[in-house]
């Protein structure tokens, strides 16, 4: 196996709130190989965005902090870097795309100015060179007449176009890793399809690793090589995309997959649901965090925290009462 590009090991992230210290991410480990796409999937509040912000060292200050674990990227532990050292990495070797392109762009600066900023900061290009490179990049992400667009402001572009600009900005220094946090959630389906195709195309051309954070299992199935399913700040299950969709063993993963309405199933039937709701981060149960909603819980789930067990290869599950699928029960092909 190739050397991983990014390895997150036992990461813990804490927030200091008025009501006490909240552990938003706990004991989280995963790695991404060069050129690979890792999907992080989970519901709101599961810690997937906090994980991305921790890697970028962009946790809200002073409340948020990395309380334990390491994030090693190209031989450096990002968790221990100074602000200046981190600035050399952000935008240069790790790019990031956010959910809402309007808030990621500066509304009072032409997009060209915003695009060349990171080139001037991270490379020794002069302004004319940077402008040429920015026009090239806009053309590359499919923006028509890029030289004219360089002088326009974000509000003059449509939502899909803006997200293309944000992607161009994240990729302009050819980073080794792109972190995309819900990059298509604010977009319409037909535009979502365009943006996902674009990310896939650029990834192949630039041999870049991608961490795609989303709540949409459909997006995960279509774009990712490996998947991490998070629940209430912890890893529930991880593995290849086929492990997760064909052979899930964690009751939460199974519940999630069963609760999506699908086009190919007859309508108006009751969907399987996961009863109840996610516990608040301030009053987490002492044992497994899924215990109160789990249909397969056993006595020790309420008291002990399950460790992470390897099923086979990359497939790992954190559960005391794993639910292997019966042979021949091809979930994805139902």
């Amino acid at each position, binding site marked *: 196996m190739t050397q991983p590009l990014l390895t997150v090991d036992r990461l813990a992230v804490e927030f200091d709130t008025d009501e006490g210290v909240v552990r938003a991410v706990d004991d989280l480990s995963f790695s991404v190989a060069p050129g690979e796409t890792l999907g992080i999937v989970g*519901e*709101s509040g599961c810690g997937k965005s906090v994980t991305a912000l921790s890697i970028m060292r962009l946790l809200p200050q002073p409340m948020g902090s990395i309380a334990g674990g390491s994030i090693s990227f190209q031989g450096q532990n990002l968790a221990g870097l100074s602000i200046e050292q981190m600035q050399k990495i952000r935008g240069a070797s790790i790019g990031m795309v956010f959910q809402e392109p309007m808030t990621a762009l500066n509304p009072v600066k032409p997009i060209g100015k915003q695009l060349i900023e990171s080139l001037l900061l991270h490379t020794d290009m002069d302004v004319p060179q940077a402008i040429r490179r920015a026009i090239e990049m806009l053309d590359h992400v499919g923006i028509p007449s890029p030289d004219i667009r360089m002088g326009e402001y974000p509000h003059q572009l*449509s*939502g*899909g*176009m803006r997200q293309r600009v944000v992607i161009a900005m994240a990729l302009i220094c050819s980073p080794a890793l792109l972190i995309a946090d819900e990059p298509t959630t604010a977009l*319409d*389906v*037909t*535009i*979502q*399809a*365009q943006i*996902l*195709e674009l990310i896939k195309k650029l990834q192949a051309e630039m041999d870049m690793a991608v961490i795609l954070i989303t*709540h*949409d*299992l*459909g*997006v*995960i*199935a*279509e774009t990712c090589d490996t998947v991490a399913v998070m629940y209430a700040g912890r890893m529930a299950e991880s593995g290849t*995309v*086929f492990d997760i*969709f*064909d052979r899930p063993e964690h009751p939460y993963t199974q*519940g*999630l*997959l069963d*609760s*999506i*309405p*699908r*086009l190919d*199933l007859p*309508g*108006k039937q*009751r*969907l*399987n*649901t*996961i*009863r109840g*709701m*996610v516990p608040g981060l301030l009053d987490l149960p002492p044992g497994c965090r899924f215990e109160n909603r789990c249909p397969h819980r056993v006595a020790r789930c309420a008291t002990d925290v399950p460790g992470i067990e390897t099923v086979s290869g990359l497939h790992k599950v954190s559960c005391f009462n794993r639910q292997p699928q019966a042979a021949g029960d091809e979930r*994805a*092909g139902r």
Partner: protein
Amino acid sequence: MSGASAEKLLEIRDLKMHFPVREGILLRAAKFNKAVDGVSLDIAPGETLGLVGESGCGKSTLGRCIVNLYRPMSGDIFFEGQEISRLKNRDVLPYRQNIQMIFQDPMESLNGRQTIGDILEEPLVIHKIGNSTSRKQRVRELLDIVGMPARSVSRFPFEFSGGQRQRIGIARAIALNPKLLVCDEPVSALDVSIQSQILNLLVDLQKEFNLSYLFIAHDLAVVKHISDRIAIMYLGRIVETGDSETIHLNSRHPYTRSLLSAIPVPDPHNKKQRIVLEGDVPSPIDPPQGCLFHPRCSFRQDRCKSQSPSLRMRNEAPSHQFACHFDLEFSKQA
């Protein structure tokens, strides 16, 4: 006005809702945003009609015209054979009782300063139903129907999660025993596991109270799950309607096809060929000439640029209508 058939609960005829776009110093309405531009639809008792389209296609405006929040520019809305869109304010009240609405964001549609008990009692007070005791009784009954504990009455909306708030929104909508519910993106703000709980609740309520739904959403998989029939809207017009299964397997309009193919499928084995649409949705202020879809359509021919196709029936299936000059047979999806 005659011609409205009695067996239809709701019948919409050639409805138009144009919003003036005011410009210049004198704020003259030089242009119009043609949000709804000649829509005809009907809903039978106990039926769910799904209305799908991308942002800005006019689907919410149409919903708001039906519940009388907007007064349409022209066209008719018949409810049980009676025209309701031009009624005087005091005559509207009885129809409000029969047509209720569920909104996307339950935090914005519930008054944060009212207790849940007051929120649920308010429609009964406005419509002068029962006395204080019987109304309190009805509130408890409503909470039970939507699966909320009776002690919720004295609590405030902020104390509940998104899914619970949506249940409260649904309880308020059914308080007056309406016949038709207009659901505007009722599950798109919710997490997957909560979304399936709400969809199940809507299906159960429909069976129990013989409700009709107009289910407005952008997610075709969700709409197909809950609807008997589906209407696809593009730039203020209906481009295709038919049974859910017909739309899924046999749709004739290229836009419907591309919407279907744009949905990410939660199955990593499914590597379908995707029709990726070019460009963005044009502005409804300045819609294209001829067929509204032709700038993005890969099947366009010369006549599409000048002639606007009207909805026509498919010979083999009269309930299936589509607005395209051609009868394109698409190969069925795997």
